[in-house]
């Protein structure tokens, strides 16, 4: 049976859609198989940062990969806009992390110096309250200050997802939603994805199914260790624009609503009962911007982040079944440009480059050997 598609991407979230967009653009006929309406859509929980200043402090390959994506993000935004007219809301006004006290300020400085030691392009600035308040009207006089980096930015994750889907389709890509993949079988040089809507054949299969990736990866000889990490977000009603740039925990969207997050995109595990966490998030937000006390929260939700054992992304190709790839990460927006513009080339060529070698799964085996 000859494969009907050059590539099947399993998962229609931010990671899968970006990869599929790129594959179709590379001239490979691509099918997205997506779950139904209530998948664990991490996309919905994404904070929308295109964020550099806290990524890969202890792991330079991740820092460099993040930077590569951030530097090419404007290109992705333009492409989507040209193809579909959809504005994904990308802006790069720089970004800041606010430190409420001196202890946080000192710790942040130390981290950023470490990041800069291997990533000299991250030309951060530690600003005191006064200088920070000049950039951020309404900032509380009681905070210590914060870290500003001009290379940070943000986008609208929902528009990005829609833009990727729509441009993928207008380039000839096919999306089959409500078709969760139950099984993948490899036969010679072809893969078969089995769903309740039938079987689909392709020359390549790319697993970008978030938390569902591990199970499918096993079917094609890969081990992709992922676990859920609950992140929570508070969203206010629309407010008149007051934030000039995204902050690591507070972001005002183009629509005007203010998102308040509980942790950095590179945060470790942060699972707990919801109300105390929401309470802490609210306290912190009002601590930074007292006027937000009068803003009303219209939504609060948690989404499951896709965490790997060390928190860094995984890109893998099956040794047993070449042509089967996997991509998982929790930075679907920041890395969208890399996923749409870089990774598809590697998948088309059939090899992951040495620059991505540190992000493959054998890094976990090494850790095991050390232990």
């Amino acid at each position, binding site marked *: 049976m000859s494969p009907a598609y050059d590539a099947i991407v399993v998962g229609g979230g931010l990671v899968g859609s970006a990869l599929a967009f790129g594959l179709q653009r590379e001239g490979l006929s691509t099918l997205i198989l997506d779950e139904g*309406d209530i998948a664990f859509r991490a996309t919905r929980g994404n904070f929308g940062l295109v964020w550099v200043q806290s990524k890969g402090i202890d792991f330079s390959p991740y820092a460099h990969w993040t930077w590569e994506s951030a530097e090419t993000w404007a290109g992705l935004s333009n492409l989507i806009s040209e193809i579909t007219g959809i504005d994904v809301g990308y802006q790069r006004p720089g970004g800041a992390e606010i430190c409420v006290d001196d202890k946080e300020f000192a710790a942040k400085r130390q981290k950023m110096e470490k990041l800069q030691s291997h990533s000299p392009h991250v030309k951060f600035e530690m600003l005191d309250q006064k200088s920070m308040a000049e950039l951020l009207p309404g900032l509380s006089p009681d905070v210590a200050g914060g870290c500003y980096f001009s290379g940070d930015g943000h986008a609208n994750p929902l528009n990005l997802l829609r833009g990727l889907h729509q441009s993928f389709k207008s380039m000839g890509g096919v999306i089959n*939603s409500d078709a969760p993949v139950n099984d993948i079988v490899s036969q010679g040089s072809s893969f078969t994805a089995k769903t309740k809507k039938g079987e689909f054949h392709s020359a390549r299969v790319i697993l970008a199914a978030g938390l569902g990736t591990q199970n499918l990866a096993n079917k094609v000889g890969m081990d992709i260790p992922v676990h859920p990490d609950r992140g929570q977000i508070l969203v206010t009603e629309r407010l008149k624009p007051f934030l000039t740039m995204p902050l690591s925990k507070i972001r005002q969207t183009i629509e005007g609503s203010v998102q*308040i997050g509980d942790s950095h995109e590179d945060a470790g595990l942060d699972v707990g009962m919801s*109300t105390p966490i929401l*309470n*802490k998030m*609210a306290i912190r937000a009002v601590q930074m911007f007292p006027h937000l006390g009068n803003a*009303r929260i*219209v939504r609060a939700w948690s989404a499951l982040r896709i965490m790997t054992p060390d928190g860094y992304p995984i890109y893998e190709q099956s040794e047993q079944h070449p042509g089967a790839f996997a991509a998982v990460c929790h930075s679907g927006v920041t890395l969208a440009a890399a996923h749409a513009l870089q990774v598809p080339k590697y998948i088309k060529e059939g090899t992951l480059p040495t620059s991505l070698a540190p992000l493959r799964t054998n890094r976990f085996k090494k850790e095991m050997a050390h232990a």
Partner: protein
Amino acid sequence: MKDHYDIAIIGTGPAGMAAATVASAHGADVLIVDEQPEVGGQIYRGITRQSIKDRTILGDDYYKGQNLAGAFAASNVDHVSGATVWQVSPEREIGISKDGAAHLLTADQVIIATGAQERPFPIPGWTLPGVMTAGSAQILLKSSGITFSNAVFVGTGPLLYLIAYQYLKAGVPIRAILDTTPKSNRLKALPHLPGALSHLGSIMKGWKWIKALKSSGTLFIEGIDDLKITGKNSTEAIEYLVQNKWHRIETSNVFLHQGVVPNVNLAMASGCVYHWNEQKLCWHASTDEWGSSNVPGISIAGDGGGIGGAIAAEYQGRITAYQALYTTNKIKKQERDINVLPTRHALAHEMRIRPFLDAMFRPAVQFRIPTDDATMVCRCEEVTAGKIRASVSLGCAGPNQLKSFTRCGMGPCQGRFCSLSVSELIAEARNISVNELEQLRLRPPVKPLMLAELANLSTFASEDT
């Protein structure tokens, strides 16, 4: 307010008041919370004030609420009025906001009695100032004596005729009544008539309202096939299609109504399971004969679980209260059963008219699923039917994905005035039944909450300092 109660009841409509009265009479420590400053819910709104001088305007059914409110006032419960409940967690942790401060407390049993809301009526122009629900007209009349001369009443269902009749009794001129009841409904309701005959009095009452309206000289148009409301910044006219011909009436006020549906947001956000009811075209709580939901310790009473009207709600409130008393060891099983038996019979009797009403006043499909793509479906985020259809063709499978595509359902009303239309619209576009769709996932806070209130939440403040 204490930190913990035996039984907490949300809503002081007929179900909530009845439940609280029963529960406190048997020694339970009861909290009851409502957003309004006075008891009564929407159906008996303003019942403790009785501000309108002429009692014939609102009619005897309304003043029946006095007995219930009187018994409630005499009972020993903690009544927190003017307070918003923004969450009931599956662990029965209740988030309450009052006077700018938020509180958390717990209860062994929670009875959700959040009542009904009016069904969305998505037609062109339904967002214009001057267009309100017929329920609004009644609320303004009951609580402030405010009416609008020369308004047009549009739609179907007993409440529409009742309010128009109340206007008539009050001597307020009505410009027109545009009845959208599909003529074919009569035939479909006929098989349910025998069952409803035990409620002949109610049927006759409704018939009397309609007859009075028709003989009053008010323009009463039936067989409406399509509608649009027009105006620039405010309502200027309503246009209607009858027998393939469009007509136009100039007016500044339009009152829409096509039935009531359960107010599900709080219960759904608590994890209570609802299922689609094709006869009633709305979500129904999947509760047992005691009103108990799938979430341990949370029950649903009254119209918030499924529409039965004020009297049925009162009975359901009693039944859930007896079960809550039994579960919290305030009464023995035998006492529960003896007390509940007559109420069960009365409830069964009360519900007998419902299949007839559901069939008779089933709203027409074109007024539930907009045919015109430009019609607004999500009032908050201003998402049109056309945008929703386009999203479905792009692969959007249900209302949750639709949020990602369009922000539909993401505004402050949290889907209350769009989710029924959205579900039916997506199901139609995908050519499946609403039952096969996922429901809009709801999460606390179910009502907007000030950030300062959440930051100053009393229970957790001490932990942080």
